[in-house]
């Protein structure tokens, strides 16, 4: 991890303890997860207890302490999506890429997550891959939606 970037983030937030959640959100923006050595570095620089940082990292759902895949699949499990069959979509994804919710595929291609509600309830059931939204999804669509991501060349 490049600590220069971390220093920049800390400076932007004026090394404020109250800004720790925003700091961690910005840090996670770099590598898509929070590496332990980075959290230790932040703790040292801010003179903030490491237990408090880990408390926040494990309390808020947005934070991940393990690396994520290149593509994040987020299945909305809001009420409208649930009624529209979000569980069946989720199960179909699990069968297709062979991982459970919260896991990452062995080849680090996909991470699978559920999200409480994306606020796009009129489009239910909704699924988001990275930044791309898919609306009115049904289990029969899953393979078709996932395959273009598998074909993308390595960066």
């Amino acid at each position, binding site marked *: 991890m490049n600590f220069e970037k971390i220093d920049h983030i800390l400076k932007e937030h004026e090394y*404020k*303890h*109250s*800004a*720790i*959640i*925003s700091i*961690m*959100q910005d840090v996670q923006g770099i590598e898509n997860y929070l590496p332990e050595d980075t959290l230790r570095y932040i703790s040292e620089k801010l003179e903030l207890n490491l237990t*408090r940082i880990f*408390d*926040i990292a494990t*309390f*808020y*759902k*947005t*934070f991940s302490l393990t690396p994520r895949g290149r593509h994040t699949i987020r299945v909305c*499990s*809001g*009420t*409208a*999506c*649930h*009624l529209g*069959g979000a569980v*069946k979509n989720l*199960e*179909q994804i699990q*069968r297709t890429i062979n991982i459970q919710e919260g896991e990452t595929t062995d080849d680090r291609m996909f991470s699978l997550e559920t*999200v*409480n*509600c*994306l*606020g*796009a*309830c*009129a*489009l*239910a059931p*909704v699924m988001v891959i990275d930044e791309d*939204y898919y*609306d009115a999804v*049904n*289990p*029969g669509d899953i393979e078709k939606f996932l395959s273009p991501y598998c074909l993308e060349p390595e960066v």
Partner: protein
Amino acid sequence: MKQIKTISDLEDLRKCILKQKDPDKITIRTCLSTGCRAKKSIKVISALEDELNNQGLQEKVEIKKTGCHGFCEMGPIMVIEPANIFYRQVTSEDIADIVSETILKGNIVKRLLWKDAGTKEYTKTEKELPLYKKQKKHISYNSGKINPTDIEDYIAADGYSALYKALSAMTPAEIVEIVVASDLRGRGGGGFPTGLKWRICSAAPSDIKYIIANGDEGDPGAFMDRSLMEGDPHRIIEGMIIAAYAIGASQGFLYVREEYPIAIEHLSIAIQKAEEYGLLGNNIMGTGFDFNISINKGAGAFVCGEETALIISIEGKSGTPRSRPPYPAFEGLWGKPTIINNVETFGNITQIILKGADWYSNIGTTGSKGTKIFSLVGKVRNTGLVEVEMGTTLREIIFDIGGGIRKNRQFKAVQTGGPSGGCIPISKIDMPVDYDSLREAGAIMGSGGMIVMDETSCMVDIARYFLNFLLFESCGKCVPCREGLKQMHYILTNICEGKGEKGDIEALTELGHFMISTSLCGLGATAPNPVLSTLRYFHDEYVAHIYDKKCPAGVCKNLFEYMIDETLCNGCTLCKVKCPEKAISGEKKKPHRINTAKCIKCGICYNLCKRQAVIVI
């Protein structure tokens, strides 16, 4: 840049902006909110821009990129003014026709008009659409009409007039009293009188006070706050500045879910623009009043929508609620008196200041004043955002505005209030929607989610769904919530899996009442509502699950089978081709069969069959 240095500069600026506007100019209002963006509106708008440039029309036609129109399902939406023509589900391929026919010749492109699924009639204009016709848009009026990233558009639509009036002609005490007299109640869920909160905070002795706008819209199925923040961010900011002036605060916080990146972007731009124009920051409009706003992004914790948890989260800690009193109005952020209101509540303030408390309190019912925005979703025909007067009946909302139930199925229930709310059955369809009636019916107003269910929705599964949701969102601090949720969820999961036993219903009821009376915060105290309300109105369905081992709606996997009705099946083979488990057999043009031993109940065949020959038994 036109900085407003004295209080009269605002009116001069407004006149100047309005003078430059040509009301007869053709304007195409396009939506750039989450819903339409998800349906590729950015691509469509760029195709429109290209086409207008190619035809040399860029000077004659204005493209206005607005926030949410409320009819997200029909996105991408385009409304062509001044004729008010409403086009839906516009694709890049439709652009050439829109420009050559509608813009150049004034003709309608019929295939892009909205068509009523029931009557098969087309609707030409936005104002004639059933979804909009019965609405009373006071708070969401600008959303979908103005460009939310252009402060001058907001000012042209009377924006910041309420702030002008408050700062130039009212004392802080007068503002507090007008909000008290309006009887406005908080739109976040609890429904506490907003004016009282302001009065208490205003009287609290402290040099430092804070204003917090709660935009942590966590209720699944609700998206009115997102739409308001994306579509009319200045309205919220203006409400916050007025509140700050009323109680003497100089710092405000906007707490927004990080799942709403466009809302965060639009609010950030709005704050920056308001500062540039002298409407926010130091010495607002030259009056000597200082107020700054910063944005805090939520980090995916539902419990942070609870006010004490949200405050702790802004302080940079894990957002666990604390017991009240002391209420935030006495002791809030960093121990200082704090007003925390929902963003929609702040959205109500400007009209109360401009039109007065009497005008406001004439709208609505005795105990619930004004209008409320609901997100009408689920198995209803027209889904979207609906702003109606308090006291409008459920029937008017679901059947007149929402157009009834999809696929001609039967209405079963409507769920309001998110995980803290309840399910209301058909017998209460003529009930007025207000804080007190909903509570009486075992639900709550909540933030305004209204999820419509039909005969394919299982009420036991819905109850389990909400408990499952809360099980993960409970902060774990108090025992009744942490353990109560776990036990209730365990019982409900058993019921849904076909392992329900005699005594389960009684145990759920007892645990539910225990949690209500002993939990620390609103999350635990309202968590049993979805279970208790479904037990009250849909007792039969629990009985069917526990004793008959059947899920009548066909949702709980262990309790139903899919079967093909041989009298309906025409042997099109679609289900057979798509079945991932090869569990369907049959020859072309002959009735097919499902091998139930192989079937994994993924539902693909059920969704695919156009003749609805796949049935649940």
